[in-house]
């Protein structure tokens, strides 16, 4: 309401600066997100093999998607991964963050924790691929040295997905912990002191104070990690390529397979649009459910 009273010139200049600051990401958004998204959406109504002109097929690709058992399987496999990845990773990260907050504020430890996250995904996947190799992997050498049967890990239908989830938990838990740790710093110490005076124990303080006050940070962490988790691709591309059989053929790998192995761009973009709708829905529900925009500190 006060902006009315300000001199027009100042307001104009302010707006100008604002646009100048926003411009780089706005341009990036338009070129790298908005335009490709619209093109992708249009593409999903065609059959296109990249080399010959696209053929308009109406909603045929969407009709096909609803009857596609492989797509449903890909969704199931992806969901299985998310359900393994997110709870373990978040719990682990929360634990690490609380421990750090309690026992050590060392920057070195924080540095070590984010180290796996700083490594390129491809490198992480390759290292683990070798460590977990069924025949000559380091881990299997240890397992055999202890007198157990060696494990196929990424080579078996049952173990492949949990193994990939474990690799990515290893990579992301430290980084997630740092985010939560930062959130812990925003909780005023007086609240804990007051609780202590009232005779609350550690457990009560954790569930009564820490968790509720961390909510905005936790929601941010959950929203971003769940979206990231649904987009699992690079680890799979390096280690299992969707296999064995279809045990790790997640939605992103399925899209890749249609786009760049089978060269069916139309159907590949149709799956992408479906995934987009699913992610938007999940995020919307999360934001509503967790009331992300308000904090209990207010």
């Amino acid at each position, binding site marked *: 309401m006060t902006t009315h009273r300000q001199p027009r010139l100042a307001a104009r200049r302010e707006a100008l600066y604002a646009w100048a600051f926003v411009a780089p990401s706005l341009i990036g958004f338009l070129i790298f997100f908005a335009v490709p998204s619209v093109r992708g959406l249009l593409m999903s109504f065609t059959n296109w093999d990249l080399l010959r002109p696209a053929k308009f097929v109406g909603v045929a690709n969407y009709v096909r998607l609803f009857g596609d058992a492989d797509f449903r399987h890909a969704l199931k496999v992806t969901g299985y991964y998310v359900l393994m990845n997110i709870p373990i990773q978040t719990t682990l990260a929360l634990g690490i963050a609380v421990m750090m907050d309690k026992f050590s504020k060392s920057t070195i430890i924080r540095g070590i924790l984010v180290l796996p996250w700083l490594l390129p995904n491809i490198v992480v996947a390759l290292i683990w691929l070798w460590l977990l190799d069924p025949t000559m992997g380091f881990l299997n050498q240890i397992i055999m040295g202890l007198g157990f049967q060696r494990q196929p890990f990424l080579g078996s239908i049952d173990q492949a997905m949990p193994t990939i989830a474990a690799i990515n938990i290893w990579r992301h838990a430290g980084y997630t912990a740092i985010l939560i740790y930062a959130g812990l710093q925003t909780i005023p110490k007086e609240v804990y002191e007051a609780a202590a005076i009232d005779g609350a124990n550690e457990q009560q303080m954790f569930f009564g104070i820490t968790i509720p006050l961390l909510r905005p940070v936790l929601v941010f962490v959950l929203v971003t990690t769940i979206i990231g988790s649904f987009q699992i691709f690079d680890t799979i591309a390096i280690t299992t390529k969707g296999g064995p*059989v279809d045990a790790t053929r997640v939605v992103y790998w399925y899209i890749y397979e249609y786009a760049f192995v*089978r060269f069916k761009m139309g159907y590949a973009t149709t799956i992408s649009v479906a995934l987009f709708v699913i992610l938007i829905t999940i995020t919307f529900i999360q934001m509503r459910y967790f009331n992300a925009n308000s904090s209990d500190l207010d």
Partner: protein
Amino acid sequence: MRSRINALALALSIAASMLLVACGGAAAPAAEPTKAPDAAAATEAPMATEAPAATAAASTDAVTIRYGLWDGNQQPAYEACAAAFTKANPSITVKVEQAGWGDYWNGVQTGMVSDTAPDVFTNHLAKYPEFASKEQLVDLKPFIDRDGVDTKQYLAGLGDLWGRDGKVYGLPKDWDTIAVVYNQDMLDKAGVTVDELNNADWNAKDGGSFGQIIKKLTLDANGKNALDKAFDKTKVVQYGFIPGGGGGAYGQTQWSHWAVSNGFKFNDGLYATKYYYDDPKLAETIQWYANLNLVDGVAPALADIKSLGANALFTGGKGALTTDGSWMIGSYTKDTKFKVGFARLPKGPEGRKSMFNGLADSIWVGSKHQEQAWQWLKFASSPACENIVGSYGVVFPAIQSGVDAALAAYKAKGLDVSAFTAQATEANGTFLFPVTDHASEIGPIMDALMDSIMLGEKTAAAGLKEGNDQVNALFK
């Protein structure tokens, strides 16, 4: 409102300036047409005289032809060819570009879209029909007729594989067959002779005498072989046989020889529109093949094979026998710590059968120098180049004189590769690689199904029926 317009103008001007900077960077070198420091830049110059009737030396401008191949072992051979070619045609330089199988095909296909595919590239029978149907390959027939190239000079049948509806999409450069690879030390220790191996028979019920040899060559930690009642298949230290994996749609080095020698046929020939994957003869073959690991324990599990590859397991001394293609001879014999030999495929119910596959060079329609590309392709599939390639002893060229050169080169290395050549020349000893449409879709379908059979998730009969339905649905 006006402020918003101004802001928009600012944003646009920033965007425009960014675009200008981007364009400037790319445009700068092109703005100096007089310099042309390297051959690549010179290729941009328009061709003044592209007389259709002219043969070599159609233009005196220096041109660089990019030539793609995936087999790193063959790169030195083709670089030698390229040098010989440039010597005879000083205005044309050939740049040989190599990338591994997977990256190679991705690169070719995306290169066609982005206008950066090589001028001439090594083509495969599973791939070319789709490129041809997408109009990406130059029809070589007019060039062949014009220059009078003798297409009869190639070994039986190889040339015919590369044509469709009177058009020709490639000239053959090499061929390959399959044979049994053996570890001489392990044979000696088990008391199996090479003669026994060469005369073995096979059937899908119990593996025949070849199956017995596999068992004899499989040892557990207690030194018992798989013929022994006390054999412990959970503690195998030496496998009798190392399968090459599930083999996907064609099982070229994995199961095609077993299946066809059992009476199976893939389809009704060139450009067939129906596959017969549901043939019970294939099902019993594949079940035998999968059971080597699943039931008998005489072969490693699929996970082990996938992690290292059959070749590495074999050269690492994990097993006594495997089957593989003639292009792999070098990979088995180079730097291997034990003596490796090649034996004939066992005699199945229908005799010995090997897939006969051949590669050819094709010209991409997007090539800006099709005449020069043709000159190179013609040279690469002529005796002059194929003899050079043969002399490297890495592959069997498609012309007999090249094959002779290759045999001499292998002999000089102390290798007996007659198991491959005898198979190729034997009456009815070979069947051709299945060439049909939809190969890039058949691949993923059959890969997954074959793996699920190998892992024991599905029986061969059920899995192959499922695969057959999915594959044949592609042709409807």
